[in-house]
């Protein structure tokens, strides 16, 4: 049969952001896929040439509207590492709490998008309704629902009172309870199992070979999570990464689903362990201009993000680079698409939780 090339994207019902895959088909089977990105390449890394390092964090936050807090945090941690700035303990805990709340809202967003993609509109609405509650928490504590601008080099801009933290935890725990029903549907609904089960199976060996990160790797049985390595106070948190072994689309959904209550529990632990009181220091401002290079690793909702920062002693950085988890997961996604049925391509692409804004910067 004659080979056919079908462009998938840049506009497609399952894609919130533009991505193109030229799918080369043999009948209904995909035999190759060629990615093209760049539709939303904004040149944010180039902006280090014109934006001073003290302001660049606000640009970095705008890499992505879902991971914006953790992008800002990663930038701040990188500069703190170069400039040897010790961050006050309460600020570190607040960062950890906001990071985990980010994970909750990101996974709820993805579960909703996933449900929408496989035609479960009701589930989509449930997930997004719950996500709105998490965004309310962000709005109340940082002032912004999407872009928070709360990270500073050396700490955080705003405190959250102990009573407010207790109220947030209560609200999150209620949400975790409400989410149990949604999780039960995800795990047991036969139409979801039929649509996602056994589709797009990534073996553990392939996950390693393609350098997959985050839930993508954990759904294939690999116990990997940057939080395990203890930085940013995670050494004081008791948690075990969520690992599934099936490696299919359903396993990737289940990993994210199970990580939601886990992140809420991490928030609980953080609130219990953080120093209490009003007026505690939140920021140690850096002095002078940074000199040096650093790599920073964080566990974003989609997996390990890597920042490279090179500073030359002026107020402008020489190089800033963000290697986002979606960028790292694209080779795995292409591997999965090869050999699958055309009808399964949307779900396979969606279950890597692609963030194209992050990928292109």
């Amino acid at each position, binding site marked *: 049969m004659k080979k056919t090339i079908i462009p998938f994207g840049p506009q497609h019902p399952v894609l919130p952001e533009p991505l193109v895959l030229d799918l080369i088909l043999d009948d209904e089977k995909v035999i190759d896929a060629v990615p093209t990105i*760049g539709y939303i*390449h904004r040149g944010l890394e180039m902006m280090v040439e014109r934006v001073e390092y003290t302001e660049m964090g606000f640009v970095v936050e705008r890499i992505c509207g879902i991971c914006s807090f953790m992008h800002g945090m990663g930038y701040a941690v990188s500069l703190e*590492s170069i400039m040897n700035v010790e961050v006050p303990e309460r600020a570190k805990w607040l960062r950890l709490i906001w990071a985990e709340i980010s994970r909750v809202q990101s996974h709820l967003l993805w579960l909703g998008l996933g449900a929408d993609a496989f035609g479960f509109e009701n589930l989509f609405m449930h997930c997004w309704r719950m996500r709105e509650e998490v965004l309310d928490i962000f709005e109340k504590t940082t002032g912004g629902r999407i872009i928070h601008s709360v990270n500073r080099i050396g700490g955080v801009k705003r405190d959250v009172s102990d009573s407010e933290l207790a109220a947030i935890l209560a609200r999150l725990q209620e949400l975790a309870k409400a989410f149990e029903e949604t999780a039960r549907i995800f795990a047991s609904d036969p139409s979801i199992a039929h649509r996602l089960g056994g589709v797009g199976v990534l073996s553990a060996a392939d996950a390693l070979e393609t350098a997959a990160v985050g839930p993508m790797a954990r759904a294939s049985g690999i116990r*990997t999570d940057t939080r*395990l390595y203890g930085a940013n106070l995670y*050494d004081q948190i008791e948690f075990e990464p969520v690992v599934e072994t099936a490696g299919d689309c359903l396993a990737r959904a289940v990993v994210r689903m199970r990580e939601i209550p886990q992140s809420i529990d991490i928030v609980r632990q953080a609130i219990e362990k953080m120093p209490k009181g009003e007026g505690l220091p939140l920021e140690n401002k850096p002095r002078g201009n940074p000199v040096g290079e650093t*790599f920073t690793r964080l566990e974003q909702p989609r997996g390990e993000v890597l920042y490279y920062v090179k500073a030359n002693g002026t107020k402008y950085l020489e190089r800033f680079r963000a290697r986002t988890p979606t960028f790292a997961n694209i*080779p795995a996604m292409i591997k999965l698409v090869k050999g699958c049925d055309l009808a399964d391509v949307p779900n396979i692409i969606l279950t890597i939780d692609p963030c194209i804004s992050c990928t292109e910067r």
Partner: protein
Amino acid sequence: MDREPFLARVEGYHKGGWRLALINAASVLTADEAEQGAVDVTWAFARDAEFEHIRERIMPGDEVPSISPSFSAAFLYENEMRELFGLNVTGINVDLQGQLYKTSQKVPFSPSAIRARLEANAAAGIASATMPVAGAPAHGAAKPAAIAPAAAPAPAASKPGAAE
């Protein structure tokens, strides 16, 4: 760069169970005539909490061998380096032939492109970074740059099961 020892070292990481974490290019901004057009390329590998890298300075015209025979996922980074920095990466397993990014400016991060932008900014009075000037202290000369893996210290020994 010495091609064979480099590829052998990369393969050593592959056999040792390391994951390709990042390939990063950074144009070298310097007033030193001998270094004009140079790009520093860093291949970073991770194995749990461990994080190591190889750094090579690539001069204009140098060939950068693809590491995709060892790490198949390298193709995305290598195509990116070629498109954004103009590096001559050879032997990529998935050669996207300049189709990865749709940028209006070709090779926007090459040393010459950065120099041109910064000089244009200076001529137009736009506040921006500046190129180092010959005879003046080099940017960052006061303290040699050293790579320190941030935010990834060794796992706390007191916490069982903190690392694989």
